[in-house]
Structures are given as structure tokens and as C-alpha cells.
């Protein structure tokens, strides 16, 4: 199984449910020894993975990584199908090229069910509309709850029989307190807060925090003046102001605490120290805070809608979230009826035993084994993916652009998959007008955001001496390329600006032995160098380059290869 591990360090998702979910599922897959490779895109993601889930087999995204493992029975597990924005590339092209069956984790389809709330921005709506046909191309969905499964089937027009429920788990940090949790809460709770009911909430209306506040007005003060409702989570200042004003008007502001953003340890301690945890949400994909509270050994109650009843699987632990009086009654009973509290604790323990990351991982493996691919297909070893980045077309450094077009044409004629990454040389010329290369073509500036470096086995960055290669040069400074240095003058005089590209280059191609020697002296970090005389024909050059690319990763960094090999001198 190839698992997309990128969400663990996604700028927004890593702090949210999806980042935490992927970390948990990877932990479970590791713990049950599932055959798995975790694929990452950046060094930062690799560091996060090594820290949070040690012991994983990690590999950087590349067509070769997929090719190495694309055999019948291998699945690709897409973990960010539902993550915005859509160009995050949830199913990279190399997965499609290899015809790997795809299983995608289905967290929820809440935005589709409430478009008037979540799709008021037309762009959000359009991207969601695109996500539905993309979802329908996968072989199976792995839903985190039965509710997520049935709603995804409805909203995305996906066959329910191809959806399996795999559940979720709580992080191991969520355990009953080993010491006094209040000692960790000095920043969060002031001394006058005695017993407290806690809820972990977001700013979304569906979290129903306002419903809970209304319910709190029905909770009798006779339960204790020091009894507080603690609303944990980061909320916008405007929302906090609204809630505080409302609580003030309702006469309960002195019994409500808003914690603001919490650290991981503070959240665990807050749950451990609570008399009761309440989850009044109107809709969730799973309801991880319910499980996390139960894992902390706290009596926990939740609303009886969406996925939430599945978590505790005990009707006596649920209430109608639309009725503040019902919420209040559930809270009071859970605080005062000792036998009910014991029952809630028992339900919590059963949930903690049932919903583990190991169980989610086992359910994942079992579902993939049971379902198999959705359509008849053969996993295959996809061909190399190459890209040539540089100027193309008339009028932009004609010598280099003609050579680039010759190279792309020759490589394609020899059966390679080649993408032209077109540098328009700083002109306003549209990319499509700049070249006769009519298929598989992108502006070179799209590399990074829209065209992922891991789409390609090799990128050949072609630089000339004319001042029209800026975009190519900029790309080569951030993405390791094979630099084809066209003009020998660059090596001695004008290469300074491209030294950064040289420092990360996978290899360099030059036209003479003298240029190779100059480059070797200029670079702090040596890389293999291929010498091909400039008079070499397009076809011969393409053949030499393909042979070089096949070998280069195994070559010593000090290698200088001459093509054709230099003829030994017969002079005495």
C-alpha cells in the first residue's frame, strides 16, 4: 500500500482533523505491520513523519517510487481527496499512469450537505463540484463512520457497496490522568473554577456551541456556584464577543470560560480534569473529541445525530442537540446520577477499546482485500516521465529554442513521455503560441504550484547565455534538475547567477571537456557531468541523454562522461 502522507505537514490541515487522522492511520498501519510505504513531498514532511510516527518506511514522491511498488495487489491510499484547494493533487499523475487502484479516505461531506453555508463563495462551490467527479474515479472510499459512508454515497453519487467504514482512533496522549491535571491548567482556568463541564468546539455553527450555551442557562446553580462550562478551542474575536454578550444577557457569563487556543498538553489536562465532557455538534464525520474525552476517563455525552451516536454506541449517552432543555437534562443527570456516570464511563471504555488506530488500519487492509479494484485493470510499470524546461519557439534565443524542440521531438519519437515546460523568455507571448510542441505543455512558472516536481522522473533545465531564461533559471534554483548548459561562455563568465541551480543539480550537460573542468571548479558540491559536443545531432543527443538519465543516479558525483568517448591520441 502506498499512502499519501503529505497532510501531516499541510499548512492548515496538520492542526485539523485530517492531519491528525493521517498521523493516526499511519501509526495504526505501522503497528499492525501492514506492508506500506508513506510517500512525502518535502523534507519538512519527512521530518514531521520521522518525529510523530517513527519506524515508517518513507519515500519521497516520484514516478520511480510508484514504479518500484506498482505490482498487482498494491493500492494507493489517497488521504487528501477532500482537502482544499483541489490543486493539492490528491491523486498524482504517476498513480494514474501506473493504473494503481485508489482508495480514498472519506472524512465527511458536510459542505455538500449545507451548500448555503459552505459554498457561498463561488470558487468553493466550483472546486467542490470538481471534487465529486474526481471522487467517482476512485475504486473505493474508506469512510471514517457509517454516517460519512451513507452521506458520501448520496452527495457524491458513489456506489455505497464500494464504501467501507474504517473508523478512527484517539491519539495515545489521551489517557486518564496520572497526576493532578489542574497543575497543567494554570494558564487556562483561574482558581475560582471548581468542577467543570467541558466541550471542545470550533467556530462552525454546526458545532452548536450556541445551543450548549442556551442549555447551560437551564442548568441549576444549585449544582454548585463553582460549576463552570468550559468551551475549549480557538475562536474568532468577533464570535467570542458575540457569545460573551449573549451569555451576559442570559445571566450565565460568570459560569462560562472560553479558553482560546490550547496546546496539546493543555487540552489533554483539560479533558482529564473535567467532571463531564459534552459534544453537542449537529454534524460530524466521526466525532474525535468524543472519543478523546472518553479516552481521558471522563464521563462523556454527545448529540444523537450524524456520526456521533456511533462513537459511544450507547443511547443513554446521547441527547437531542436541537433541544436546549434536553441537553441540560442530559448534563444534570450525568453530573448527579452516580449509576448513570458509571454507565457512561463503561460506554467510554468500550468505545476506546473499539475505536483504535490499529483497528482502523486492520479495517483498511480488510476492506481493500475484500473489495479489489472497481474495474478490470492491470497495474503496470509506467514509462519514464521527462520534462524539458527552457525556451521554445521563434524569436526567443533561437539556437536554444530550436535545440529544445529538437530534443523534445526526438525523445518523444524514441518513446519517452516528455512534457515541455515553456519559458517565454520574459515576453508576453502566450505559451501556446510560443512553440510547435502542441501536446503536454505547461508554462515553466507553473512548476511547484500546478505542476508538481514529483510528476517527473527527470527535469532537464536548459540554460543559454541570452538573458531570456529567467523562469527556467528560477525553477532550476528550487527544483533539482539536469542542467543543460548551452553556451560555453556561461560557464566562465555568466554562470554566477545560476550557481544556486548548480548546487542542487542532479547532473550537468555541457559541450566540452574544458567547460566540464571549469564547472567542477566552480561548484562547491560536485555532481556528475555529461559532455556532448554541440555538433551532435538531435536524435543522437536524445539517445545519449536517455542513456545518461538511466545511469546517472548510480554514478559517483565526480563522474565526467564523454559522449562519444574521447579517442585516445596516437601521437607520440
Amino acid at each position, binding site marked *: 500500500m502506498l499512502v499519501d502522507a503529505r497532510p501531516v505537514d499541510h499548512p492548515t490541515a496538520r492542526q485539523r482533523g485530517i492531519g491528525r487522522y493521517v498521523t493516526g492511520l499511519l501509526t495504526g498501519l505501522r503497528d499492525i505491520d501492514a506492508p506500506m510505504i508513506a510517500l512525502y513531498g518535502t523534507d519538512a514532511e519527512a521530518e514531521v513523519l520521522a518525529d510523530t510516527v517513527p519506524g515508517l518506511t518513507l519515500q519521497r514522491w516520484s514516478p520511480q517510487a510508484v514504479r518500484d511498488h506498482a505490482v498487482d495487489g498494491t493500492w494507493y491510499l489517497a488521504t487528501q481527496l477532500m482537502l482544499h484547494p483541489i490543486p493539492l493533487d490528491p491523486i498524482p499523475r504517476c498513480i494514474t499512469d501506473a*493504473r494503481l487502484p485508489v482508495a480514498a479516505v472519506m472524512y465527511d461531506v458536510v459542505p455538500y450537505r449545507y451548500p448555503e453555508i459552505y459554498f457561498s463563495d463561488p470558487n468553493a462551490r466550483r472546486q467542490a463540484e470538481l471534487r465529486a467527479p474526481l471522487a467517482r474515479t476512485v475504486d473505493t472510499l474508506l469512510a471514517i463512520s457509517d454516517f460519512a459512508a451513507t452521506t458520501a454515497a448520496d452527495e457524491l453519487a458513489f456506489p455505497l457497496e464500494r464504501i467501507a467504514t474504517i473508523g478512527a482512533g484517539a491519539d495515545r496522549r489521551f489517557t486518564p490522568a496520572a497526576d493532578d491535571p489542574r497543575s497543567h491548567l494554570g494558564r487556562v482556568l483561574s482558581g475560582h473554577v471548581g468542577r467543570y463541564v467541558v466541550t471542545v468546539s470550533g467556530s462552525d455553527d454546526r458545532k452548536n456551541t450556541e445551543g450548549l450555551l442556551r442549555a447551560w442557562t437551564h442548568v441549576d446553580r444549585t449544582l454548585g456556584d463553582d460549576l463552570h462550562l468550559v468551551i475549549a478551542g480557538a475562536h474568532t474575536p468577533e464570535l467570542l464577543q458575540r457569545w460573551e454578550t449573549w451569555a451576559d444577557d442570559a445571566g450565565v457569563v460568570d459560569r462560562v470560560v472560553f479558553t482560546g487556543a490550547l496546546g496539546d498538553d493543555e487540552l489533554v489536562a483539560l479533558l482529564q480534569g473535567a467532571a463531564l465532557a459534552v459534544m453537542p455538534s449537529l454534524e460530524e464525520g466521526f466525532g474525535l473529541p468524543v472519543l478523546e474525552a472518553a479516552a481521558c476517563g471522563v464521563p462523556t455525552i454527545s448529540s444523537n445525530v450524524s456520526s456521533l451516536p456511533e462513537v459511544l454506541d450507547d443511547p443513554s449517552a446521547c441527547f437531542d442537540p436541537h433541544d436546549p432543555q434536553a441537553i441540560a437534562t442530559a448534563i444534570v443527570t450525568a453530573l448527579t446520577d452516580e449509576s448513570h456516570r458509571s454507565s457512561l464511563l463503561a460506554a467510554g471504555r468500550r468505545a476506546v477499546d473499539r475505536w483504535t488506530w490499529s483497528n482502523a488500519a486492520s479495517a483498511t487492509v480488510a476492506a481493500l482485500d475484500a473489495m479489489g479494484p472497481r474495474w478490470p*485493470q492491470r497495474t503496470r510499470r509506467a514509462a519514464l516521465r521527462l520534462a524539458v524546461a527552457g525556451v521554445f519557439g521563434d524569436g526567443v534565443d533561437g539556437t536554444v529554442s530550436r535545440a529544445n524542440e529538437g530534443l523534445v521531438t526526438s525523445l518523444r519519437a524514441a518513446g519517452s513521455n516528455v512534457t515541455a515546460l515553456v519559458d517565454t523568455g520574459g515576453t508576453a507571448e502566450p505559451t501556446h503560441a510560443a512553440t510547435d510542441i502542441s501536446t503536454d505543455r505547461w508554462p515553466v512558472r507553473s512548476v511547484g504550484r500546478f505542476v508538481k516536481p514529483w510528476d517527473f522522473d527527470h527535469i532537464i533545465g536548459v540554460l543559454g547565455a541570452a538573458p531570456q531564461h529567467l523562469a527556467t533559471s528560477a525553477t532550476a534554483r528550487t527544483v533539482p534538475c539536469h542542467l543543460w548548459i548551452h553556451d560555453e561562455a556561461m560557464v566562465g563568465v555568466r554562470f554566477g547567477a545560476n550557481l544556486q541551480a548548480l548546487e542542487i543539480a542532479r547532473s550537468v550537460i555541457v559541450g566540452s571537456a574544458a567547460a566540464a573542468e571549469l564547472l567542477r571548479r566552480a561548484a562547491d558540491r560536485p555532481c556528475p557531468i555529461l559532455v556532448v559536443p554541440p555538433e551532435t545531432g538531435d536524435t543522437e543527443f536524445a539517445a545519449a541523454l536517455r542513456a545518461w538519465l538511466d545511469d546517472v543516479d548510480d554514478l559517483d558525483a565526480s563522474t565526467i562522461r564523454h559522449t562519444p568517448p574521447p579517442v585516445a591520441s596516437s601521437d607520440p
Partner: protein
Amino acid sequence: MGRVRGDQTAALAAEVRALREVVLNINHVVTQTQDIVNQLNHDVRSGAEQTLPLFLGYSERLRLDADTAIGATHVIERQLALLDERLAATSGSDAT
């Protein structure tokens, strides 16, 4: 040569319809992008100081529209690859 089963044909027809929707979506986004570029050009030429907030708003819309259009091409590319595969499977030949 294998025959396409009825349910497969239905699935393909549904995907072709979905593909058409995606293409219409791209047409819409690209047209909107063109409009924004025109407005942007007008506003920038008429003086940057007053129109700077508009400039920022337009550029954000352009970025989101670009995301949507590129996302659409990703979806189409994958759908076409899978349609190729399924058609090849029904005819017994290799997909390209």
C-alpha cells in the same frame, strides 16, 4: 472482442456527462478570468493608489480561478486515462 455490459455503458455515459460539466466549468472560469484581467488592466492604468484594494481583490480571485481551472484539468486528465483503460479492456487491446 469482449462486449460492454449494460451497467458499464451507463457508468461511462455518466462520466462523459460529468466531463462535459467540468469542461463547461473551465469555460466559465476562464471567461471570468478574462473579465478580471480586463478590469485589472483598467484599474491599474487609472491609478494604483485608489485601486490598490481592488487590485488585491482581483489578484486573489485570479489565484482561486486558476486553482479551479487547473483542478479541472487534473480531473479531466484522470477521467480520460480511466476511460482509455476501460475502453481498452472492452476491446481487449492495451490502453495508451
